[in-house]
């Protein structure tokens, strides 16, 4: 009986919260500044034709720069707690699963490249492309075709940092000509594609690393 009344109380509180939330959303004041018009007005100078990519990599480029820095830091924190033990050989999955993964991974790589390229003019971009690549790596690991990673060697370290370093180099190079990450309109498209390519590789390695560095068979 006491339990029933408790459930009723929680349910009533949850319903009241939903009602307040819905009310607050319906009463929401219009935004103080409408940024849609300026975004659309300067789209021609941004080097891309998709407004989301223009905001992420041109107007608010430093946000994206800091995002990749945060992801890199998260991976460094994981590397600090990963022990030095060599990765154990991964389990071998069922041959059908392996064959399916072998079929799926090339397709996923094609999809990632397409997403990267399409980011300039339609939904897509470096983050989605990197996530698809990372998912391909995780898939290979789960079916036993890709062993877990131990301490990264030089090549992997360069790959992990490349996106951030490339982004930073472009930012530093543009600093001499004006303010931070203010691309000249003529070169903006090429610069954004360059940065996004670097970001895709690094993001794929970082996201896959979050999985593969921690994925160990040795249990305590």
């Amino acid at each position, binding site marked *: 009986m006491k339990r029933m009344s408790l459930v009723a109380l929680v349910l009533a509180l949850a319903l009241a919260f939903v009602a307040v939330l819905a009310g607050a959303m319906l009463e929401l004041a219009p935004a103080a500044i409408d940024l849609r018009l300026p975004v659309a007005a300067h789209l021609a100078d941004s080097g891309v034709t998709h407004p*989301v990519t223009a905001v992420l990599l041109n107007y608010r480029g430093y946000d994206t720069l800091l995002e990749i820095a945060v992801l890199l830091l998260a991976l460094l924190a994981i590397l600090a707690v990963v022990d030095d033990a060599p990765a154990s050989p991964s389990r071998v999955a069922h041959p059908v699963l392996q064959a399916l993964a072998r079929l799926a991974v090339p397709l996923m790589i094609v999809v990632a490249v397409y*997403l990267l390229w399409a980011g300039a003019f339609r*939904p*897509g*971009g470096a*983050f*989605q492309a990197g*996530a*698809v690549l*990372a*998912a391909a790596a*995780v*898939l290979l690991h*789960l079916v036993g075709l890709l062993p877990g990673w131990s301490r990264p060697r030089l090549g992997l370290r360069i790959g992990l940092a490349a996106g951030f370093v490339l982004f930073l180099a472009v930012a530093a190079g543009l600093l001499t000509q004006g303010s931070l990450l203010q691309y000249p309109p003529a070169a903006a498209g090429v610069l954004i594609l360059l940065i996004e390519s670097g970001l895709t590789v690094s993001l794929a390695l970082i*996201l896959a690393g*979050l*999985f593969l560095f921690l*994925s160990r068979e040795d*249990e305590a």
Partner: protein
Amino acid sequence: MTFAFDLLLALSLLWSAWRTLATPRLDRAIVLFIVFGLLMSLAWARLAAPDIGLAEAAIGAGLTGALLLDAYGVLRRRRVDR
């Protein structure tokens, strides 16, 4: 037609969220969480935000689901060892 689809989507979102939290078995909860993520990315696409939908499908449903399944596998093997 679109309204019926949206209604169905919203209801299945709520249902899968509830089942994810309420189901007693961990493996089923993870699978339901992946289903919830995929439905969520559909909802983002319906809200005219395909960019977020793509990110949700790749990161929310794909990578997080794989991480959770892997963690579940390790937990189960540990329980068998004991």
